[in-house]
């Protein structure tokens, strides 16, 4: 199966001024797919639509070959879901939460759950409401992993965790993915964190998918050009790449561009534009430039 998760034309109006629109995600099997986007971009809504926690107005969702809109329970059985906030009722102890989850997942592995419990050093008899943030995050991951899912969906899983807890969480996740070949879809606005783990990237903004590409290709495609201003500079029209942003400096401009290839320097030279340097960007810079290039969200309303 080439794709672990496929959405086509997913849409849901959430408020008069916010909707997820025509969202078509393709998450390749075995990938760690980072869903990036600013706060309020629609990441959590998208994940909830995929999981059928919210009913979409339109669109299809296929999870591991199962039509998730028609058979949501069957699809969820194959997914390990880590929500933004741990949803287990606070009165349950950690051990009770494990027993409760085991009832719903036929593939629940008790020995594996116990192994994870020990490794995560979670207190089995402590009530969920008394867990620290880091412990709650670990419990959420334990509950997501113990039935050995083929697809993990994690919604801002490390938001608010301290660096040590975040590192532990990520290590466990990557270990599971490496051992089982599972696919992971991780939503986050913490770009540096995704950069360490993801091999595919999707950027969502104002409810629409802006980019979906392998991480390296994304990083390669966005560059910053130092452009000489000795001659009148052309507009962005007709250029073989997208100019996301232009910043004036004394005697030069900085162009953030998408779709840049080294051979394109010649095209600019023909137009009398001197490219003085090409600067590689890290993922965060690429992401910021991409979103800047889309303009102020308020402008479009």
């Amino acid at each position, binding site marked *: 199966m080439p794709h672990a998760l496929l959405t086509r034309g997913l849409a849901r109006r959430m408020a008069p001024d916010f909707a997820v629109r025509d969202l078509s995600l393709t998450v390749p099997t075995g990938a760690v797919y980072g869903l990036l986007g600013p706060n309020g971009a629609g990441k959590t809504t998208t994940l909830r639509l995929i999981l059928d926690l919210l009913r979409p107005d339109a669109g299809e969702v296929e999870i591991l070959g199962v039509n998730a809109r028609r058979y949501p329970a*069957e699809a969820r059985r194959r997914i390990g879901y880590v929500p933004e*906030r741990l949803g287990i009722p606070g009165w349950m102890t950690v051990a009770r939460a494990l027993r409760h989850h085991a*009832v*719903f997942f036929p593939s629940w592995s008790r020995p594996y759950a116990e192994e994870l419990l020990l490794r995560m050093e979670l207190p089995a008899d402590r009530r969920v409401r008394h867990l620290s943030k880091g412990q709650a995050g670990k419990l959420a991951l334990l509950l997501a992993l113990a039935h050995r899912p083929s697809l993990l969906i994690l919604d801002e899983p490390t938001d608010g965790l301290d660096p040590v807890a975040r590192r532990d969480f990520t290590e466990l996740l990557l270990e599971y993915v490496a051992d089982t070949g599972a696919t992971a879809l991780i939503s986050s606005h913490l770009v540096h964190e995704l950069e360490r783990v993801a091999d595919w990237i999707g950027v969502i903004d104002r409810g629409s998918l802006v980019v979906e590409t392998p991480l390296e290709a994304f990083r390669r495609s966005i560059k910053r050009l130092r452009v000489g201003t000795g001659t009148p500079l052309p507009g962005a029209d007709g250029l073989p790449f997208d100019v996301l942003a232009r910043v004036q400096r004394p005697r030069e401009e900085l162009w953030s561009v998408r779709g840049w290839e080294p051979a394109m320097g010649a095209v600019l030279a023909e137009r009398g534009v001197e490219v003085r340097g090409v600067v590689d960007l890290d993922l965060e810079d690429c992401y910021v430039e991409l979103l800047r290039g889309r303009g102020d969200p308020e402008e479009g309303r």
Partner: protein
Amino acid sequence: MIREFLWVEWERRRGMLLLVTALYAAVPLMYLALLGGVTRPGAGGAQLVFQVDPLQLTGLTLVLGVVLSAFAWGAGSWGDERRGGWVYALALPIQRTHLFALRYLAGLAWLALPLLALTALSFVAAAVASVPTGMYAYPGSFSSWAALVSWFLYTLAFVLSARFEHPWRIVAIAAAVLLVAATVPGFGVFPGLSRLVELVAWGGVTPLRVFWGLELPFGS
């Protein structure tokens, strides 16, 4: 799976359930005590309907307690699982309709415990009390009335709490539903509920009318 739902309900709300059971059980006992007022020299049934004494007020309060606790039992079905607009249980691999049905049935099954206590003690009270001339005890009717009212309010609160997060909305909408039900002309399909609405909204009847048959919800 229903066993897990029943067990979770018990573990989660057993304190409240025992309190509700005690409250339900106290109602027939209180009526038994009220009967002492009827048998007092000079006191008659007709007088009692309009008379308000501390015992009657206590009885009224107990019935209100029953009404409110049945409602609260339903309203508490989802409350502690809500996390920012979603309910954790929806993420479990179970059909949404099954989840709702199982959760509803589990809560309803436990509500049978207080109703059983009320029924048993109603019959005990009717058996041991010496009923004044002209009055009749209808423990069966009373228990049926309590069951109907409890089921209706539990269901109403269950549905509302599944839809709305804020308690005040649940209460406000439920109150609106009950008031509309009470004022719709020709309403009489659920006379037990009609009594309840009167009781809650206007205090127009005393509990004695229901329990001791001065006016019966279901006839004899």
